[in-house]
């Protein structure tokens, strides 16, 4: 061990359980995922079990990892356990599974919640979310990706969360024009807004956001592929908003009804750069990069990439596309 010194016999038998709890608890163990803590960490010894019962460990709950071997029902139980243990101290939760019922449970028990992040789960609905946010008066950050929500519901959320300062909406083929209108109408206190994958092609909507959300400090619309801001408007955005992210001529990686050709490799890079993500890893030297062959590098990005890969018209028709 690097820290073991010959002149200091005590370090050889150093008892790490004597570490100050503020380090071992909140700073280290609290950073692990909820499943890991409940399934593993708390079983290490009595002392850690006690630490794991401290509500301070559960101010932030991340259910985004530790999926192995657990079905959605079990995960929901784990999540409710974690919420129970926070004893109402929960301020930040990330869920990528679950139902409106779970959301209801979280919101009932967690009045102090300031950040709610729901990803990759169409089982959450705008209606359920609306019920939940009514009970969360301190909610400041809301991140939604790939959940079932319609534009009216976004507007209701805005009205129910007057403190909302940061909003992220990620979903391909949404009618971004209508969403932008709802956001501009209902979220006047926003400081940070990020829209990924929206089909927003009208400059007027960006103007609406500018006037509806006068306090914006950051606006990220790199993921809005079909937007072609006119020069004056882009200049205005850059003047008004400290951190303005916009990219012209983003082409999604795979042909759909909005683009008539496949993207080139460099355009695919641009795409992922455009939405602020790393390109999924796959073997560049492997010429055989058909849809199903991405080597072993299967990770979240891979699934993201899969979702972006709406390759055939038939698949595409499954999505509801509103026309502006």
């Amino acid at each position: 061990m690097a820290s073991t010194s010959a002149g200091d016999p005590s370090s050889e038998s150093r008892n790490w359980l004597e570490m100050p709890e503020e380090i071992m608890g909140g700073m280290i163990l609290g950073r692990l995922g909820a499943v890991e803590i409940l399934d593993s960490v708390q079983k290490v010894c009595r002392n850690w079990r006690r630490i794991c019962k401290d509500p301070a460990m559960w101010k932030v709950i991340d259910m985004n990892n530790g999926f192995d071997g657990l079905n959605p029902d079990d995960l929901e139980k784990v999540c409710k356990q974690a919420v129970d243990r926070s004893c109402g101290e929960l301020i930040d939760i990330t869920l990528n599974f679950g139902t409106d019922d779970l959301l209801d449970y979280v919101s009932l028990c967690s009045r102090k919640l300031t950040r709610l992040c729901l990803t990759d789960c169409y089982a959450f609905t705008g209606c359920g979310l609306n019920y939940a946010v009514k009970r969360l008066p301190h909610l400041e950050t809301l991140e939604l990706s790939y959940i079932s929500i319609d534009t009216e519901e976004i507007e209701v959320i805005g009205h129910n969360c007057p403190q909302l300062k940061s909003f992220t909406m990620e979903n391909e083929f949404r009618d971004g024009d209508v969403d932008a209108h709802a956001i501009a109408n209902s979220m006047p206190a926003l400081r940070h807004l990020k829209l990924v994958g929206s089909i927003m092609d009208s400059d007027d909507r960006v103007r609406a956001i500018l006037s509806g959300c006068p306090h914006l400090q950051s606006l990220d619309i790199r993921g809005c592929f079909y937007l072609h801001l006119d020069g004056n408007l882009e200049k205005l955005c850059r003047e008004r908003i400290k951190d303005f992210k916009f990219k012209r001529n983003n082409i999604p990686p795979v042909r759909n009804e909005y683009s008539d050709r496949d993207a080139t490799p460099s355009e695919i890079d641009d795409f992922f750069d455009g939405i602020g993500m790393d390109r999924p890893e796959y073997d560049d030297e492997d010429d055989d990069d058909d849809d199903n062959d991405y080597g072993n590098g299967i990770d979240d990005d891979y699934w993201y990439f899969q979702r972006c890969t709406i390759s055939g018209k038939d698949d595409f028709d499954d999505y509801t596309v509103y026309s502006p």
Partner: protein
Amino acid sequence: MSKKTLTLMSKDKQLFNIEEHLAVQSVTIRNMVKEDGASSVIPLPRVDSETLALVIEYLNRQQAPEEDEDYVKKFVDERGEIPTLLELAQAALDLDIKKLMDAACMKVADLIKDFTLEEVREALRIENDRTPEEEKAIRDEFQWAF
């Protein structure tokens, strides 16, 4: 005029010199200097000499503020041993050097994230002190995990 130097003493009584303007990145030392000028030796009863040498190295090699985040991350990455990192985290807690403590704790969390139960016990030399009854209670409580 030469720069003012402070002397820190580790728990195994080794002395380390460091220039005052660098040492005051530690909030603990800054407060001491403010209070009494910290003319004498500053004892650090919970920090061993190897760890203190690391802390001094960290304080001495401070970068421009904008490079600081990367630097502290690299600094803890290079010291990937869990016991070293825990000592470092505790020293940073005592000396109130927040960035160093955050980075060291985050690195430990990263390292133990993928450990099995036994690996965690081994890495931290923790003995399983739970009685069979307690084992059973946990199993009953978390049946989904089995």
